[in-house]
């Protein structure tokens, strides 16, 4: 029964995937209730919903066959704080009359379960976050990205001139370390489709970058924060190894360019007064990214895995962080570890939820 939705309600963002069937027969069209039709039209004919909902058109998967049906998969996101409005809209559009199951994952599936029931007269099917994530990653990688590779890496990450994005074949994915960077970070070791474990996590994630940027620069969107960061110089904010030792610290094999102390220069009043907001945004981005890289690297070593896949919405339009992760993993592991990325960054949990819906049907 249509409609087919998968929902991932995170701490900051709600990710929604919607399967738009393109093989609807005239007969079906006839039978399709008005509600359903209007939802389909509303979602597919807009790229923005309300003031905060956005459809990532560039990520749309075309001509996908799912459960014997052909159609397009749409990727939509909006802030979690607009969840009540979303439920309200569902209620107004009499979503509940469609007698469909709404599969949801993420912490919000629990947090908003009651609201869905009381406000929207909807019963949520709550799904495990990590199960969905892995399911989604494996599925999307297997179907590819409209004929292109879903997975990619950066060649020559340590060489800014020669660094380039190249497709990566993830046909034999196991074992892999999956690092999901949302508001916080979860790190999973995946040994097979069913066999995985959560290795660790850190609270220093996308939410920390954005939260600190808001406090330090007064910015109000993630995009704005990233944009400022792209114009900043973090070496004015951070204390580098060369700032302390005048060059490399040879005793420990530390290169002079390495950050010795994040925000270390900000201990001095003069330097605090001379940095720009852009510098601060950049330093925040570098700090959080390097830290995630460092924890991921340690986990990979402890788990004896050499492929690290980074996903999550922190990486959306965030080339600085991706390149830095690729660089850091390569440099500090002396080429032993490879950082991989996926085009659909933050949507895998929602895709997994959709797949659960179809599996259960």
């Amino acid at each position, binding site marked *: 029964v249509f409609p087919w939705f998968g929902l991932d309600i995170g701490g900051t963002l709600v990710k929604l995937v919607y399967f738009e069937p393109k093989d609807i027969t005239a007969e079906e069209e006839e039978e399709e209730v008005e509600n359903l039709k209007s939802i389909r039209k509303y979602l597919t004919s807009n790229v923005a919903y309300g003031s905060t909902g956005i459809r990532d058109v560039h990520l749309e998967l075309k001509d996908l066959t799912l459960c014997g049906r052909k159609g397009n998969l749409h990727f939509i996101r909006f802030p979690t704080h607009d969840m009540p409005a979303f439920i309200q809209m569902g209620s107004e559009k009499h979503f509940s009359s469609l007698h469909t199951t709404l599969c949801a994952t993420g912490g919000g599936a629990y947090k908003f379960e009651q609201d869905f029931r009381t406000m929207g007269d909807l019963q949520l099917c709550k799904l495990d976050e990590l199960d969905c994530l892995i399911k989604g990653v494996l599925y999307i990688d297997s179907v590819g990205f409209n004929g292109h590779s879903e997975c990619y890496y950066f060649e020559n990450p340590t060489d800014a001139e020669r660094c380039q994005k190249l497709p990566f074949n993830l046909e034999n994915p196991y074992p892999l370390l999956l690092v999901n960077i949302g508001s916080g970070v979860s790190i999973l070791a995946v040994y097979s489709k069913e066999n995985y474990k959560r290795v660790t996590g850190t*609270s220093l994630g996308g939410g920390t970058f954005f939260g600190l940027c808001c406090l330090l620069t007064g910015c109000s969107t993630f995009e704005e924060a990233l944009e400022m960061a792209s114009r900043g110089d973090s070496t004015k904010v951070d204390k580098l190894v060369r700032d302390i030792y005048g060059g490399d610290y040879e005793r420990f094999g530390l290169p002079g360019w390495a950050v010795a102390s994040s925000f270390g*220069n*900000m*201990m001095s009043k003069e330097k605090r007064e001379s940095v720009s907001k852009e510098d601060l945004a950049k330093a925040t981005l570098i700090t959080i990214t390097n*830290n995630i890289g460092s*924890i991921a690297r340690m986990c990979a070593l402890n788990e004896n895995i050499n492929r690290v896949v980074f996903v999550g919405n922190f990486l959306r339009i965030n080339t600085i962080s991706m390149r830095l992760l690729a660089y850091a993993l390569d440099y500090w592991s002396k080429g032993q570890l490879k950082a991989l990325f996926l085009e659909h960054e933050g949507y895998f949990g929602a895709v997994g939820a959709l797949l659960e819906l179809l599996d259960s049907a």
Partner: protein
Amino acid sequence: GGSLTKLAYYSTVQHKVARVRSFDHSGKDIENEPLYEISVQEEITARLHFIKFENTYIETCLDFIKDHLVNTETKVIKATGGGAYKFKDLIEKKLGLKVDKEDVMTCLIKGCNFVLRNIPHEVFAYQKDSDAEFRFQTNHPNIFPYLLVNIGSGVSIVKVETEDKFEWIGGSSIGGGTFWGLGALLTKTKKFDELLQLASKGQHTNVDMLVKDVYGGAYQTLGLSGNLIASSFGKSTTADKEFSKEDMAKSLLHMISNDIGQLACLYAKLHNLDKIYFGGFFIRGHPVTMRTITYSINFFSKGEVQALFLRHEGYLGAIGAFLKGAEQDNPNQYSWGENYAGSSGLMSTSPDVYPMQRSRSGTFDMLEMDRLERPLVNLPLLKDPSTYIPDTVDLTDDAMARKYWLTCFEEALDGVAKRAAASQPDSVDALERAEKFRQKYWNKLQTLRQQPFAYGTLTVRSLLDTREHCLNEFNFPDPYSKVKQKENGIALKCFQSVIESLDSLGWEERQFALVKGLLAGNVFDWGAKAVSDVLESEPQFGFEEAKSKLQERPWLEDSYSQWLERLKEGPPHKCALIFADNSGIDIILGVFPFVRELLSRGTEVILACNSGPALNDVTYSESLIVAERIAAMDPIIQSALRDEKLLLVQTGSSSPCLDLSRLDKGLAVLVRERKTDLVIIEGMGRAIHTNYYAALKCESLKLAVIKNSWLADRLGGKIFSVIFKYEVPCK
């Protein structure tokens, strides 16, 4: 360092020691002569001093060094840390010495190894909100390998495998500098200490996104802890809300501490290490950061790794730089002991813990370590040296016992000062020095009331040792020397008649009489207040009377029957090691007859006495004279000494208690050579306050008379209750 200067220097200290020397008795009227001669001599010992003060006083410090540079050979001064660069010119100009800069990390690790090896209770775990916030660890005989996590402006993680082998295995740029720099930006608060103050008042839950913020109320059903932080600063992702400075500082503190703890755990796991020591200015003396780091390590290691801290962490670099400079003297070949009299306690400068003290002493802090004449090692017979804890009661833990003993030592203090003054009737300033001693020890006791953790685990032993150190500091090296001399003289006169009466007994009665003699001798203990009162008022209190005071069998702890059975049925012991207690009646009429019986059974005896004086305990040099005099009266002792069946050794200690993990190396060698299979420990200090629960690899006998009614009460007995504990290790 960034704000503090730590100075390490080596000095020779001249102080008075009491020496005994046997008279030449030939042709003299020995009846009316004292047994031996006591003289007070000047002795020169080596001492390491460590001083810590704010950088603003650097010039005063350099003046001090200039005035005390007695060794004109000195051409260089070793310096490490950021300030080594900053103050190089000033130091060179003022002192006329060349500044030799040493690598920070190398110094840190050298210093760390040094304190781990030489200072008992150097290491502690920190538990906020528990009765004993500081949990001190006993020194493991093997300190390697360990992980040192130094949290300065950044974080360095170093794996230390041996004295000279260490490796930087990782680090993080998120450290103390991040807390300080980012904290200053967020809160407009400039000083590190003030930021910590802010953090300790804040609520991080207003700024951080918690698991329960993401999951709503459902986290419990999922087995998640709702209070875990899902995203640090995850609630500040808005431009239109104000956050309090306190809350932001707290959130930042958690973020950084958790991150460091997590990385430390990951590195510990990768390198298979379970000891992590934390240091650096982020940690130094700050309960707030020790608490958050401890929490983080517990969380990320699931309790498998313990966050450990060091009492003298702030001195590591200076100690290391000093050791580098003193390499040709090889300071590592010696054993060193912390001098409690000359050291300010842990956190003596922390405003959080002791505001009173801070206002008085500023940030001035010091540590003194005495070079011991001989190296100290474990008793080879300890069952498990890594878990051996000398002390029976941990007073940091046991508030009631702590209160009692601190009061007890306070009440006894006037008497001790008086006796110290009286022991030097010919000295003009004895009274004045005794008063200074009284003041100093009184202050130490007050500090310990406030900060029981100041010098490691507080124990009766540490209280006694601190008193000895303070007495020495004011040149009362041996206040009991004359008392001991007199008592030894009196007891020697009785020796033969005691032996005759013992020899007239049947075998079984004799064994019991010997044990009673040992116990009765032990009643003569000036260290115990109840006894010193009796002794001072009733000088005739004799050996027989002491016996009559003893508790009748069954004793409070009584395995005498098993002991007798062992003597009767078992083969003679190969070699017995006896730790002697008091001078006079104890050693001469209690221990020596017992030794004589063991020798007659064919058991060799190693008699161990203290190297230096403590209370009325018999010292090694006194024991030599006593043995010589007994040998002159008794052929069994005489031939045993001659044939080296009876060996007198020193313990390496000057404490009224006994730490079996720090004993003279010569003793340990002998114990091994002679295949010692019996250890006898006597006296309250050595067998009850310490070693009551010590497990040994061989048979052991612990005996004492409880001469303190509070302690007797605690153990379920009365004053003069008897402890006779014969233990056989399980196979």
